[in-house]
């Protein structure tokens, strides 16, 4: 399987698994003319079936865990998962909360973590690109 065209044509699906909207707004900010992710071929799509990269935000609340798993399974291979924000990476300030079953890597396999509360759009773009680089290395049989 060749992934050479992947790097420049990434379609991104955004999953909010109980986030406070801070990271989500930064993801939307990355689409604005100021950051313009479309120049790298990155596009936000409306359905996991079209997606190559899942952007997951939030600490994963109990009701969202099952949905997150399902969205992950609905995404066609090859795919990468990028966690955006401190909550998704470590559960952040919601650590040990009764209603939080995360962080995200307890539910689905994660490729790249983008820390920050919220991370800047540049960091999110960088995370997406790193995820694809990792995907390509894995396809080439290298260990990461």
């Amino acid at each position: 399987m060749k992934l050479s065209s992947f790097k420049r044509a990434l379609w991104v699906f955004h999953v909010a698994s109980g986030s406070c909207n801070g990271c989500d707004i930064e993801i939307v900010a990355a689409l604005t003319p100021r950051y313009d992710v479309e120049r790298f071929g990155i596009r936000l799509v409306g359905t996991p079936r079209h997606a190559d990269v899942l952007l997951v935000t939030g600490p994963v609340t109990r009701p969202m865990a099952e949905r997150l798993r399902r969205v992950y399974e609905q995404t066609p291979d090859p795919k990468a998962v990028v966690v955006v924000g401190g909550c998704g990476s470590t559960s952040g300030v919601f650590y040990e909360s009764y209603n939080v079953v995360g962080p995200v890597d307890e539910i689905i396999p994660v490729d790249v973590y983008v820390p920050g509360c919220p991370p800047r759009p540049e960091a999110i773009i960088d995370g997406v690109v790193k995820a694809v680089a990792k995907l390509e290395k894995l396809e080439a049989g290298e260990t990461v």
Partner: protein
Amino acid sequence: MSVLNALWQAILVLFGGTFLALVYKGIDRKLAAQMQGRIGPPIRQPFLDVGKLLVKETVVPRTAVRWAFNLMPFLALIAAGTVLLYLPIGPFRPVLSGYGDVIVVLYLLAVPAVAMALGGFASGSPFGVVGAQRELVMLMSYEFPLAVVVVALAWRVAGLGVGPAFSLATLAANPLWAQVGPLGVLGLVLLFLVLLVVTPAELSKIPFDIPEAETEIAGGLMVEYSGVNLALFYLADALKTVAMAALVVALFIPYGIAAPLGISGVGGQILDLAFFLVKVFCVMFAAVTTVRVAFARLKVDQIARGFWIPLTAVAAAGLLLLVLDKAVVG
């Protein structure tokens, strides 16, 4: 010999058309980005998108009707490609001229929309079904004004007595602008405007992209499509854009520049072909790119009402002016 010839021409038109369709799509996205103050994707972005979709896994949902779900993307692409074979490409006659006329083109243009709708129904997703219903409402809305435009033109060309009136080759060879009086020119302008409004609706582009509507129904009838199937729909959409623009060119601006400049032979044909591509680009830019940047999405009832009453009235007025003009000019 002639069958082999036609086959070669068909292959050339289909591959060249697909290539150009993707280039046009790239230019369209680049210009749209520039208009929004963005840098935008590179021109070759659509090629990268298609290449990427081809290596992705193609998922068929468990609730989908498998054969229909997999058949519809092929049907959409084949129909969109076949339209190109019926259209005059610059100085060249349509590859399939003599085997069908503008009525066939109208039906073929409707096939990708119907295929997408059936694919949406077959995908077993509520979003897909909502999108498919919207697509069918759209189809019923824009077909009527489109048919009025085509029939008006063909009726006037029939009055000239220059061969089969519904043949696209005849329509393209006899531009009506010089044949009609002032009333007729006014009528033609109205019909041209109607066709320009119908074009983005035919292509499901903003403000008429309600069947896909990513922000409300998550991609609508495309919602369950992935991988190769999605790539086929992507190509069908690009081809249909070029085909629709080429139809507008063939109906209203079929002029060449080689003859007025006095260049003949192969050089003239190449010049005319280049001019044709420029005209197709201009139509696409005016009717698709600019419109989709400038407007927000309409609601389905607004589109249905808008196309059935005001737009059809404008088209009918154009038809009426042509009739009056015929009565005056004779």
